[in-house]
């Protein structure tokens, strides 16, 4: 059993009178793919927004074991969290549509590049150090473009890509920040079965490169196949936590998915039918 890369402890998030996340604790182990699942409105995306610093938790702790040792993410400003090694994608794709695919990936490496410009002066004068840094950045971008099969579209506007390619580009962009933990918010949403299959491959490839993955997903085929560990949320509470097989057999999970299908677009069938 490896060490955790992310520890979430008794996390609480209230929006006025609504408690969206209630005393949720779980660990994501280094090198694992940890999936967070649950019916709509269970608080999954809120947990993501808390981990990536878009919300401040009402109570609880989030600890990252990243590049610079242990780091309390709940006290870290939003833009520092990415610098500590947490990258994320968004449920509704957030690319820079008017910039090219390559530019999107270079923006992701902003901090490393900016550090080599000497407050912009060195780069304005075209000094060698900045040129080398930019070459390295383009090489890293090319690497992830190849991994996501987007290399031939590198000079096209991100907004002109088809939907599936935009999803892949968002993952490539997140990987260009060189994260230790990649948070994917419903990466398979809107993809056809073949694209989902390719996405699973891509996620496995990313894990093989040494990055841990936290995944929100409704596509149970993807979740059950690639996850090492599954955390189930319902109404803001954690109701199960274990291997895919354990979770699938869990009574409370089945009840959450079958029993209260009020706004549920994820029926239990794929959950049980998954391999």
């Amino acid at each position, binding site marked *: 059993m490896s060490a955790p890369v992310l520890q979430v402890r008794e996390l609480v998030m209230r929006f006025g009178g609504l408690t969206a996340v209630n005393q949720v604790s779980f660990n994501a182990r280094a090198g694992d793919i940890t999936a967070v699942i649950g019916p709509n409105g269970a608080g999954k995306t809120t947990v993501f927004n808390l981990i990536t610093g878009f919300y401040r938790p009402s109570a609880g702790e989030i600890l990252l074991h990243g590049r610079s040792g242990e780091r309390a993410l709940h006290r870290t400003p939003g833009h520092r969290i990415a610098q500590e090694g947490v990258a994320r994608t968004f449920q*509704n794709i957030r690319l820079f*549509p*008017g910039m090219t695919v390559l530019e999107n990936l270079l923006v992701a490496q902003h901090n490393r590049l900016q550090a080599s410009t000497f407050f912009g002066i060195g780069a304005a004068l075209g000094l060698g150090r900045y040129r080398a840094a930019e070459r390295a950045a383009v090489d890293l971008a090319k690497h992830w473009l190849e991994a996501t099969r987007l290399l031939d579209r590198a000079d096209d506007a991100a907004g002109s890509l088809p939907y599936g390619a935009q999803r892949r580009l968002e993952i490539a962009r997140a990987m260009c920040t060189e994260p230790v933990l990649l948070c994917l918010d419903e990466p398979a949403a809107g993809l056809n079965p073949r694209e989902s299959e390719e996405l699973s491959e891509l996620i496995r490839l990313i894990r093989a490169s040494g990055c841990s993955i936290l995944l929100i997903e409704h596509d149970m085929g993807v979740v059950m196949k690639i996850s090492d560990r599954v955390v189930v949320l319902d109404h803001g509470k954690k109701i199960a936590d274990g291997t895919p097989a354990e979770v699938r057999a869990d009574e409370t999970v089945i009840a959450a998915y079958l029993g209260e299908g009020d706004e549920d677009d994820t029926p239990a069938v794929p959950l049980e039918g998954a391999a």
Partner: protein
Amino acid sequence: MSGANSSLGVPHEGGVPHNDDGVPDPGELSGIPRSSAPPAPRPPMAHSLRDAGMAALVALGLFVPLVGLRTDVGPGGGGLIIRTRWADVAILVGLVFAGRLLLNLWTTFRPAPKPRTAQRSAMIARVGTWVAPVLLAYAVLLPMLPGTTRYGLDLGILVLTYVMLGWGLNIVVGLAGLLDLGYVAFYAVGAYSYALLSTTFGLSFWVCLPLAGLLAAFWGVLLGFPVLRLRGDYLAIVTLAFGEIIRVVLLNWVSLTGGPNGISGIPRPSFFGLSFSAGGGPGSFSDFFGLEPSPTHRVVFLYYVILALALLTNWVTIRLRRQPLGRAWEALREDEIACRALGINVTNTKLTAFAIGAMFGGFAGAFFATRQAFISPESFTFIESAIILAIVVLGGLGSQLGVAIAALVMIGGFEAFRDLEEWRMLVFGGAMVVIMVWRPRGLVSSRTPSVSLGKRRAIAAELVGQGR
């Protein structure tokens, strides 16, 4: 900074949680072809007639009170009488009806527009690459061209000042996407900085120029702080207020700024210590070079100073666009939330945009003060901000060439129509409407990528964000 961001998809603490519907925002859908149903076909003639009738009805409603009824002073000088002019109303309504009908018929029966062929696009692109060098060469050679009058040079200086202001504002509005309606404040700060520093401490123009820029940048940062979390309309209103605050302070702080009387006797710039005095004399430019003393020397010199300043603005902007900072500005315009998720310090990035934009405004202000030798708060009203913003919008957000052409058209064109007297504003307004109808995203609306693996291809305007 609190964790919650006040804009876009991430709501306030206490607001509704993240929308969980997975439906991308309209702007994010831009890559996906939207199915738009073609309008249902109608009998063209009957529809055109009915539409023209409606337009005539609206015109009738407008022109009856506006034109049809007119109050005049009565014959005895006592009281007002109402005069009716129904014939004029009938003529105007008839014109509206006929005009609308012709327009309708033309749009119905005109030949289908030819799709722009690749050949034609390539030709336009080739011509486009020549526009900038030709304009630049013309700008450099203007004082030497035969037939350039003193008036022409003065107009050139005015146009170049607005080109520089447009380029400065383009950094804030065009690249970073922050709508700034108070840009004239930095112009004023620069002008008053130079005027006060030179008249009080006797510092020369060349010492004061960087100081004016620095002070304007400082005020840019000062404005930036309170508006960091504002976007769109709210940002526009606060920057507008900031512009007015600066002007009102200048107007009322009489002991420092002279209030409405302004500051006069501002020193003129020197050419490496040589003055441009009209009488010649020892130590003057004409004396040193053995030339006949002429007031034109100073005008030519001022022309080249503002040309150099404007080109400096352009050069810095072009360089910055290819750098991490410039890319971060553009990314900020496209999607602020994504920027934060990628570890970009949004606060600093916005502040640098405000500061660098303001700095160039300050340079232009210092130049304005030295050219006029007299400044007063009247030169820094809201209409100036509006003109500069109009230049940037008409030129195309983020486009350097477009902004230069727009400044030339707006400022130069406004002067060219001087003969039209009171019709000038009408022509001017009409021209702006036509440009915006013809090219809704500005004269040069496509975006050139800052970096590419292969051949650089322009990005269509529809994909590029406009900031908020």
